[in-house]
């Protein structure tokens, strides 16, 4: 009995201590939530933090530090996915652990903007960006992200390999091979069939990127723009037709089935496994790294269906931050035309800013790896050719997920474990198992 009482007392002590500790933990999470006012000397912080996953041009940070006397701390992540996880957790935890300014990738933009109140409304900056970049960076007509780069789509190909195959010797003839001015996905895939008919290696690294690009051009691929609910995938003929077209090509073995990010991707370049890669502007540098020492890579200025866009990011300011006024000013500074040019020179990211796009520093820069091609010029043309359609169609909350599900179906055919029809059935079954309330 005595022992029990003592034990009870001890347990109570523990419980009280635990509660106190928890309460302390909660105490720190308050604050924030007020709307951004004017940045002034009064509310100037000693330092501002910015979270991103690429290199910053040092002169850009120095400029801001000198002008305002605020130190900028860069919280650098290894890749976009890590930055995404931290941001996601921070938003769920009332801003705990967030930086003053965050870089947000287009692919997870919708997810982060699901609660617009989490973000500070940014003042309009007229004529800085291409129109569709501004509308992408807005939620309910309110600008929440300042555009950085965009990902106009091009095709990198190895002209040594296509010459060997007797099909194309330079970017122009390669453009003709995949269908010229009126290139479609069908003509592109047929060119692939032609290539593998006379070669041991593959036409393309993986069809998943190309398929994603094709999906992106649909006005409302998976979800109803009115209700935001997913369409019943089994009834979605538009997606099904596209799927079967690409899956057919996958069955004909035109692709190696190894997409960017896969362990074998870099080695595939070194072993000359494929002759083409669907390449958004930001990927040109990545290919140059992975294909280091392999001659003959060029960028074609022709793209099926006129062109498209893959990725691109925004700087956004979480509303929970303590220095939102100055964070807005930093976001503005980081997305100026000068900043965009500096970034292009540092990491090769292609700008969404009108002034930067036409800047000779970008258009006339010759790229050694791509045989001295003016890569900036080519992507500028590709972006112009794609026009507003490059912004892509409607993306609801489940867009990225359903897209992964469907592209996994293409990978299934690429690995030879299913026929196109079987793969489609499996994709539909996976979708049905999730039990969405569908739009129709």
């Amino acid at each position, binding site marked *: 009995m005595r022992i029990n009482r003592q034990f009870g007392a001890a347990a109570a002590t523990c*419980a009280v201590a635990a509660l106190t500790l928890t309460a302390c933990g909660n105490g720190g999470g308050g604050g924030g939530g007020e709307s951004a006012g004017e940045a002034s000397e009064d509310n100037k912080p000693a330092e501002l933090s910015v979270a991103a996953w690429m290199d910053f041009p040092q002169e850009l940070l120095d400029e801001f530090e000198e002008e305002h006397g605020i130190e900028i701390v860069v919280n650098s992540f290894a890749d976009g996915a890590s930055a995404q996880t931290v941001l996601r957790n921070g938003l769920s935890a009332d801003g705990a652990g967030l930086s003053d300014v965050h870089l947000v990738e287009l692919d997870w933009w919708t997810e982060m903007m699901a609660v617009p109140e989490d973000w500070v409304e940014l003042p309009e900056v007229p004529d800085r960006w291409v129109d569709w970049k501004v509308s992408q960076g807005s939620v309910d007509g309110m600008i929440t992200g300042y555009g950085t780069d965009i990902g106009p789509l091009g095709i990198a190909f190895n002209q040594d390999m296509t010459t060997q195959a007797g099909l194309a010797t330079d970017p122009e003839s390669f453009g003709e091979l995949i269908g010229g001015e009126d290139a479609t996905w069908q003509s592109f895939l047929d060119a692939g069939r032609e290539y593998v008919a006379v070669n041991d290696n593959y036409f393309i690294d993986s069809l998943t990127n190309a398929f994603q690009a094709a999906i992106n051009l649909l006005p409302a691929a998976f979800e109803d723009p009115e209700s935001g609910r997913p369409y019943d995938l089994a009834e979605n003929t538009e997606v099904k037709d596209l799927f079967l077209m690409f899956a057919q090509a996958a069955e004909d073995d035109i692709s190696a089935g190894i997409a960017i990010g896969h362990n074998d991707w870099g080695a595939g370049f070194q072993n000359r496994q494929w002759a083409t890669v669907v390449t958004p502007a930001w990927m040109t540098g990545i290919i140059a790294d992975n294909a280091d020492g392999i001659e003959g890579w060029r960028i074609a200025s022709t793209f099926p269906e006129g062109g498209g866009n893959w990725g691109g990011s925004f700087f956004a300011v979480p509303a929970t931050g303590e220095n939102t006024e100055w964070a807005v000013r930093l976001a503005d500074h980081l997305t100026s035309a000068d900043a965009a040019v500096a970034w292009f020179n540092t990491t090769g990211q292609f700008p969404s800013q009108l002034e930067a796009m036409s800047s000779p520093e970008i258009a006339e820069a010759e790229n050694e790896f791509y045989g001295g091609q003016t890569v900036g010029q080519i992507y500028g043309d590709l972006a112009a050719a794609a026009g507003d359609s490059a912004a892509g169609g409607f993306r609801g909350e489940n867009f990225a*997920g359903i897209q992964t599900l469907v592209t996994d179906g293409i990978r299934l055919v690429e690995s030879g474990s299913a026929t196109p029809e079987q793969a489609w059935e499996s994709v539909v079954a996976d979708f049905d198992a999730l039990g969405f309330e569908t739009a129709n």
Partner: protein
Amino acid sequence: MASETAAARPARRVGWGQRLSRWDIKVSPYLYISPFFILFAIFGAFPLLFNVVVAMHEWHRRAGMGEFVGLDNFVWVLRQPLFWRSLENTFSIFLWGGVPQLVLSLLIAAVLDQNLRARTFWRMSVLIPFVVMPVATAMIFGQVFGQFGLLVPNLQDLGLLTHTDSPFFQDRLLSHIAIGSMVTFRWTGYNALILLAAMQAVPRELYEAATVDGASRVRQFFSVTIPSIRATLIFVVLTMTIGGLQVFDEARMYDGGGTGGGRGGADNQWTTVVLYLYDLGFGDWQDRLGQAAAVGWIFAFVIGIFSVINFLITRSISSSSTAPVRVSRARRKATIARLRDAAAEPGAMPDDAHDDAHDDAHDGVPGSDGAADLDLTKGAKR
């Protein structure tokens, strides 16, 4: 004087200092051990119990708690074909990782248990794989099993593979074997050291006796070592079961699969339950924390059952082989006595009792002479 003063006082008053010291004795021990319990309450018990609440509700990352749905989340999970597939994958990977792991760690421990030169060096070196980050292990092994890695081109040269791609990323069974090999690589040394510690505690006389009886090294291993380390073996199998079923890092990083790690292959060939749980609750799009919590509970239940089954199997295996040990134990006494006599004889102190004991042992009548032996040693010690 002293007794008079004591009698004058009706009740003994307890001084503050004395009271403090009594509290010190009563309460302090609890305070000293309290950090563990406080930490456990916050980071162990609370999340565990809170998980029940999450599993019973509609729950999203940003929106938090939604409607109460009772057991709907559990029903939803049990209806997902992917859940069952991931369960199959997990058990398959567990077997491919666990069985070789157990066999290898037993072998390594047995070798380390011998009289080796540079013993500490070997013991430390088997632990090195365990120190390597699991993510790093997964990435390195991912390269090994890749199309241009160490393995696949060689298999192609041998004519065992014809397709140019790496089947280790496509074939379900092969991917399980590959991931199992990472688990084996990482945990074998760790388990070997635990088993080694147990083996060291096995009395050397048992081996001496067995050697005298003419048992081979292999026979000794199965008839002496294994039954003697039974308790540790059960412990190793249990922790291995729990750890092995929780495979996550290896499966997630196996093929690289995009910048954030893979989801277990295009056909979910190697999606494990924990990977599935992660994807449901914290992955890129599903945002179903309630269902993820339900997966956690279902899986905890499955692991519990499986651990019990494993425990029973392990126990029956090692207890069935304890019978021969008893026999050898009886023989041991005789042998020890014989050995001691042999050692004592050159000492040239032949007395009758000694000879009697010797003869008794030879006659196979233990009992009284065992006690006599004991007395003798005691006497010697005194």
